[in-house]
């Protein structure tokens, strides 16, 4: 079925270290994936996306890797900062002509940055 899930519910890292948040999906009928950051009391905020015809995309301090063979997605945050502490969600857009840009979200990983 259509599902997007995460390996770890909580990730604790030291400030300055790199963070890697993982996500697995089961439905290969997706044209793109997105990572969102959600801080307490706020809605999800777009971080970076990647189309299914790519395997890597880089942004500012963030890199998303897509491995379609094993249906795995990861978000790498370089030099993690206290402001990166939040819950991170991966989401996939699955082909559904009736639901436009409807996204299926994973359960989220809470990133905690230790000073």
């Amino acid at each position: 079925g259509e599902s997007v899930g995460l390996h770890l519910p909580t990730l604790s890292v030291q400030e300055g270290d790199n963070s890697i948040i993982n996500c697995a999906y089961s439905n290969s009928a997706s044209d793109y994936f997105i990572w969102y950051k959600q801080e307490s009391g706020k809605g999800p905020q777009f971080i970076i996306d990647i189309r299914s015809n790519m395997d890597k995309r880089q942004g500012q301090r963030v890199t998303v890797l897509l491995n379609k063979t094993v249906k795995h997605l990861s978000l790498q945050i370089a030099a993690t900062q206290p402001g990166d502490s939040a819950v991170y969600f991966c989401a996939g857009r699955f082909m559904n002509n009736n639901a436009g840009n409807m996204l299926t979200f994973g359960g989220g990983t809470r990133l905690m940055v230790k000073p």
Partner: protein
Amino acid sequence: GAGVSQSPSNKVTEKGKDVELRCDPISGHTALYWYRQSLGQGLEFLIYFQGNSAPDKSGLPSDRFSAERTGGSVSTLTIQRTQQEDSAVYLCASSLPRGEQYFGPGTRLTVT
């Protein structure tokens, strides 16, 4: 407006009462989405609007849930005869057709 806004930010209601949640999308965004987020969980898709029509209502959990959108802008999500399991944060997002979704801050609903 500058972003997606939702009201109220918090709503506490008694079991059995009806509630209305409002979403003001970004001006010019034709697509509007409602999601539900239970405590510590991911986002669950509820309904999608393209303009004023809702091609996909399959995510609505029961017939107590309904939504409408008028003038291609504001949308309201109505929950009738609320139950405790309806307690969650209800998030609205808007986008250009097949564009990036921008989320509002959500409405936290607590049913006592």
